[in-house]
């Protein structure tokens, strides 16, 4: 058996005829050699998918997986309904007030800049990936988005760095992502593989027919169904299916708005004598995180004023103290959600041109179902349990007999 250096690349033949590049942890085995014989869990995230979009006509493979396994129709994303925090919740099993990752984009008070939470150090809670590794299991991440690859960093035993990454979207197309997932299973066969398929979300964001035909979105859904079908076929043809748990979910869903349904809070704050120049906004599609940057002794009054101004704006649904949503202090002083069919565009009206958005309560419903041939999977079942993204880690832990993390999970095992 050959061990790889930590940052060394392993290039293997790709299904499409090219090569796939993986990195691996120091000492990771080159070939299939997982300590725990046959148990496998595959978490497939269809980024941005809505539960009503899965059906026999458009997504027959996903529908079959759902119908033959256990479906959770009440499943939900958790605030803020964005990609990074929900992927972190999946892999930690805890809410953002414990993981430190409340949104995609935050105002970093130390650096005095609005930035994505895409650094490995941003995630401050042990992931199920790391904890499995410590128990001798092997893990893999195949994440189509650059910022996801960024925040999960080198935690997994085997990692695929998204490639090719499209300009603007910052993600790899699903066909390439699935090539990498299949290649990882075939080559390294980790106990846990965590896959993010980004097309559905990325195409959804930019689909100008989002409020009408959703032409591009529909095409992306059909394609991701094909990709998931390829993965299932691999598991079945290779004999892995009987020992596998396949958990399919989304991190959030999607809502579309027209160009005239914008909410820009920054200009409103600038018109207020108390707030002008003293508020930072981290825009997260359907959620704005507001930060008071003025004097600490005026924070309470300023937050009350922010709330008042925000709630008076057309298209604003609600405003919340971050703690009420179990978000960390990094989420700022106030979280504002927009209504369905609207989006935030801050600091200016042209700042957010994309029609598809999420982050607000309208985008809470997600698909969440568990398939596979493992004995723990209940077949042809539908559960009334309120499954959430934070339930993934406890579910993974259940399969591998992993102890709960310090302080316990915030989610529940769904097997």
């Amino acid at each position, binding site marked *: 058996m050959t061990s790889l250096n930590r940052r060394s690349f392993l290039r293997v033949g790709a299904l499409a005829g090219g090569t796939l590049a993986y990195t691996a942890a120091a000492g990771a085995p080159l070939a299939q050699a997982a300590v725990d014989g046959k148990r496998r869990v595959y978490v497939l995230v269809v980024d941005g998918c809505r*539960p009503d979009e899965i059906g026999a006509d458009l997504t027959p493979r996903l529908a079959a997986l759902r119908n033959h396994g256990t479906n959770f129709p009440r499943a939900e994303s958790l605030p803020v309904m964005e990609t990074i925090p929900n992927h972190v919740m999946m892999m930690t099993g805890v809410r953002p007030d414990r993981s430190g990752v409340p949104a995609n984009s935050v105002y970093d008070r130390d650096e005095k800049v609005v930035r994505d939470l895409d650094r490995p150090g941003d995630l401050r809670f042990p992931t199920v990936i790391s904890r499995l590794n410590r128990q001798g299991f092997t893990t893999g991440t195949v994440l189509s988005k650059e910022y996801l690859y960024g925040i999960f960093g080198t935690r997994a035993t085997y990692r695929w760095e998204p490639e090719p990454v499209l300009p603007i979207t910052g993600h790899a197309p699903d066909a390439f992502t699935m090539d990498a997932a299949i290649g990882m299973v075939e080559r390294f066969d980790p106990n846990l593989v965590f896959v993010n398929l980004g097309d559905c979300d990325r195409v959804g964001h930019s689909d100008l027919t989002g409020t009408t035909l959703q032409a591009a979105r529909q095409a992306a859904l059909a394609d991701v169904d094909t990709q998931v079908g390829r993965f299932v076929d691999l598991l079945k043809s290779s004999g892995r299916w009987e020992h596998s748990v396949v958990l399919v979910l989304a991190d959030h869903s999607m809502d579309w708005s027209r160009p005239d349904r914008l909410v820009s809070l920054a200009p409103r704050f600038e018109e207020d004598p108390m707030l002008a120049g003293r508020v930072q906004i981290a825009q997260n599609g359907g959620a704005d995180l507001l930060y008071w940057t003025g004097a600490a002794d005026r924070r309470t009054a300023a937050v009350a004023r922010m709330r008042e101004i925000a709630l008076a704006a057309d298209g604003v649904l609600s405003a919340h103290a971050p703690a009420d949503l179990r978000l960390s202090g990094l989420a700022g002083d106030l979280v504002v959600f927009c209504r*369905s069919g609207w989006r935030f565009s801050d600091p200016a009206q042209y700042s957010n041109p994309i029609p598809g958005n999420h982050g*607000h309560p*309208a985008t809470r419903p997600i698909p969440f179902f568990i398939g596979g041939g493992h004995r723990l999977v209940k077949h042809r079942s*539908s559960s009334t349990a309120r499954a959430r993204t934070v339930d993934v880690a406890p579910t993974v832990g259940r399969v591998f007999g992993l102890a709960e993390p310090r302080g316990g999970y915030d989610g529940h095992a769904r097997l």
Partner: protein
Amino acid sequence: MTPIEIDRRSLLVAGAAGAGTLTLGLGDPEPAEAATAGNRYFRHGVASGDPHPTSVILWTRLTPTPDATPGSGRGPRVAVRWQVARDRRFTDVVATGAFTTSARRDHTVKLEATGLRPRTTYYYRFLYRGLASPVGRTRTAPAATASPDHLRFGVVSCANLQAGYFAAYRHLARRDDLDAVIHLGDYFYEYAPGEYGAGNDNQDVRRHVPAHEIVTLADYRQRHAQYKRDHDLQALHATAPFIVTWDDHETTNDAYRAGAENHQPATEGDWFERKARARRAYDEWMPVRMGDTVDLGDGTALYRRLRFGTLAELSMLDLRTYRSKQAQILADGTVSDPERTITGHAQMRWLKQSLTQNRTQWKLVGNPVMISPVVFPPFPQDVTSAVNDVTGLLPEDGAPYNVDQWDGYTADRREVFRHLADHGVKDTVFLTGDIHSAWACDLPLDAGTYPTESGRSVATEFVCTSVTSNNLDDITGSPRRTTSLGVEAAIQTSNRHIKYLNFDDHGFSVLDVSSRRTQMDYYVVADRTDPRSPASWTASWATRANSQQVHPVDHPVGGR
């Protein structure tokens, strides 16, 4: 409320002005009346209602002396014993007690049996002077944390005794698989004989008692008593717990907060006093928690929630007590006036809370009048907004055909639909009565742009038909499924979210709820004027979990 309001009013006038009404069966010995010779003290049957996981309401009416007739104010104060058992023979009695009743409450008996087990079938009876009442069967709700694999409800509305026999109730009573019966209102009608019977010529198949429009407390009590003597209704009450709400006819036609179409203050007195009397009688005679308890006189709030584990919660609405007066002109901006309400502000807050608390997968709403837009044509909301910026004249969702339902209060409807969309609420199903016809509908965010994303469906609605009250073929005098087909096609052409419509048949429905889907089976009776009428299945429609859309199903759920 009745469908095609203008036609029905015309018929009433014609009936009153004519040479009299032809009354069928007047010489018959009330074949549908319960024969309770062995139970002379319990002539009005037994009933249960509003099941909770560990309790259920039990009801009967005692006739302790022959002169203690309903509404008479006569008869002694007496105590009645009650028993709840696990078996029909009462060898395993699990709860028992005594209840004192008197003429003050028209000798009705209503109590809450507590300490029961969740989702368990029980039998109950009352005892007086050594004689037992008929035995009733009831069933408690699942525990709040339970996840039942399915729930099954009978769904009924609009039972006009003068328009026919309650064969629909009888057929539903033959099922042994019901967790409860949801009655969506118009449990009885207020009219005098000859005022609202069967068909185009307004024939009374049976005659109302008292023989005049009910106005006084004694009147309302007697009308309740008459309906409770119906054998088929007694059978259904004895089969499963009822979950009821009222529509207008439990008081009078087209009721609203401050009046009613069928209330004339000059001859019938103060509206609020009449309404209070109707509610008093309802509280006495129905197995329901009003004011959130079984006690009389502790309030008349009827809207309430009943929870069935994590599978479903049923929010029963009261759309008569708090509503604004109906619009007088169908196609103007009045129906969209945000100052007008069908729910009242407190009930609207409560309903929205019911929908977003998300305690259960399915959010069922017991909805006395239709919420689906039925408009000609449905205007895209942006179009009406633009026009109304100038004129303020257009109804926001299009010209409604019936302003007595949510179409007459579009601001409230928009508030509910927007709430569902804004909060990502899934699996809301409205269960509706009132309109004497059967419907299955998607509920579009904007009927004018349905089914695109901006007009997408945010919930679904199943409407049950009437037990007996007139529908379209009755009014037109046409054979069933002839002239109505054109009307149905016209409505569905303009309203693409309406997927199923049957304007002709009477009957009942069965609602089956599982985590995968909620399905409504529509059954019809062959002839409402035949007390022995057979019934048959005619259609089934369902909504899959997360879909917010209805689709046809090719067979009904079976009994168990």
